[in-house]
């Protein structure tokens, strides 16, 4: 790992995104909280859903989802907005992507702390034991986010349609993920449609820890999930390395 390069690219990325805005990073932190407010009004006051402490239930899903979706969408542009350097000098381009993921992860961490405080404040039986389940949930979240970001960023270099397609897919994916509903609410008939969504498990674990506060027992699911994620990430990494030499020509 070239930490120097990573740090410098992180600074560049941060600057490209936030320097000219007054509140900078705050906008990104506010994004899930604003969505939370809107969804609250719609689901509690208009649709009148029957879920106790719905804001906390929703926020568990939103925090994870915002990290996943904004990283996937922002990654589409991460090479494109640095074309000046990619066209002139050869270096490990994926460090640009890493800096993008790290920046989004930072925002996720801040939101995660807000979630933790929110969870402790709104209920009392918070089990320390369950805290350890957060680690595999975050590992899964990082693995799937990195995999998807590798795909969207690499493809975007070669086809400028990919950012648009990504936004549409992410939009559909949002509704296919149990964020404002619970997986048990899905009717048996169409449950197969939702079964293989990789984003479900980390959200469910985090919701179990912060919302249900029950002890989780599906250890084998977690291990299988992580193994599949690592295989997928390896495949994507190989694909990226095949395409990497052609970046300067097609960007």
């Amino acid at each position: 790992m070239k930490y120097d390069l990573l740090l410098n690219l992180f600074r560049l990325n941060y600057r490209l995104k936030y320097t000219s805005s007054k509140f900078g990073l705050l906008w990104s932190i506010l994004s899930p909280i604003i969505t939370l407010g809107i969804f609250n009004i719609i689901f509690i006051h208009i649709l009148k859903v029957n879920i106790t402490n719905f804001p906390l239930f929703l926020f568990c899903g939103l925090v994870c989802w915002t990290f996943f979706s904004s990283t996937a969408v922002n990654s589409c542009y991460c090479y494109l907005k640095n074309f000046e350097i990619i066209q002139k000098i050869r270096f490990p381009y994926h460090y640009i992507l890493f800096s993008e993921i790290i920046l989004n992860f930072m925002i996720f961490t801040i939101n995660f702390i807000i979630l933790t405080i929110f969870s402790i404040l709104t209920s009392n039986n918070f089990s320390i034991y369950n805290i350890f389940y957060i680690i595999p949930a975050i590992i899964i979240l990082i693995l799937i986010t990195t995999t998807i970001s590798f795909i969207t960023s690499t493809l975007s270099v070669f086809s400028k349609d990919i950012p648009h397609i990504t936004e549409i897919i992410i939009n559909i994916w949002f509704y296919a993920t149990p964020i404002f509903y619970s997986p048990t609410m899905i009717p048996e008939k169409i449950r197969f449609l939702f079964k293989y969504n990789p984003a479900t498990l980390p959200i469910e674990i985090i919701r179990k820890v912060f919302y249900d506060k029950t002890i989780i027992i599906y250890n084998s699911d977690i291990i299988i999930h992580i193994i599949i994620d690592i295989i997928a990430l390896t495949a994507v990494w190989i694909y990226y390395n095949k395409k990497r030499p052609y970046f300067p020509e097609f960007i």
Partner: protein
Amino acid sequence: MSSISLKNISKSFKLNNNNPFNKNNNIQKKVLDCINFNISNSEIVGITGPNGSGKTTLLKVISGILIPDKGIVDIQGEISPMLDIGIGFHPELTGRENIILYSSMTGNNTLIETDIEKIRVFSGLSEESFDQKYKTYSSGMRVRVGFSTISFLKPDIVILDEINSVGDINFQKKTYDKIVELANNSKILIIVSHDVDFLKKICTRLIILTNGKVLCDSKPETAAYEYLEYMKENISNEI
């Protein structure tokens, strides 16, 4: 020991057909056609040729930025190209930040403040303009900062594209001295320029490129003479 070896390098580009009267959608332009040459340690090689002869493409292939369709590129040594008067600086960063980023991209050791100060002084930029965003720099300033950075980092292989076309006389003199100094440290230098007299003065070898092919590769005087003869023959086509 650094060296460059090119064997049968060919490269063509697919062009978009933007002419509505032409129905042919597969326009291929052959930019490099079977290029062969070797460059070894402490050579200063000049490359010249008419516009559109493939000089910059050739430099990009040597730098590993473009992958040739055919042929083998074998490069020994660390390489820093300066293409189209830029070395890969980001427009949104200042000169100082760009130098720090650049040195980490090329895998050099972290530069300390005095190193950057040396680069700035050599470039001749004032401290205020040095700390402005790179996108505000004039082309002269870009060349100055770019060349200063490369000559400070001293990579094994230095590639300079059109360096003396925008710098002023004083900076050209400085560049000349620095190039000689770099060459004495047994580095490979490749200089692309339209200034044949400049190349004759500084190079140990001159390669003439026309239509993606090597027209001549020999001593600067011989090659320069052949190039001028070639251009004389072709002047009638231009008029």
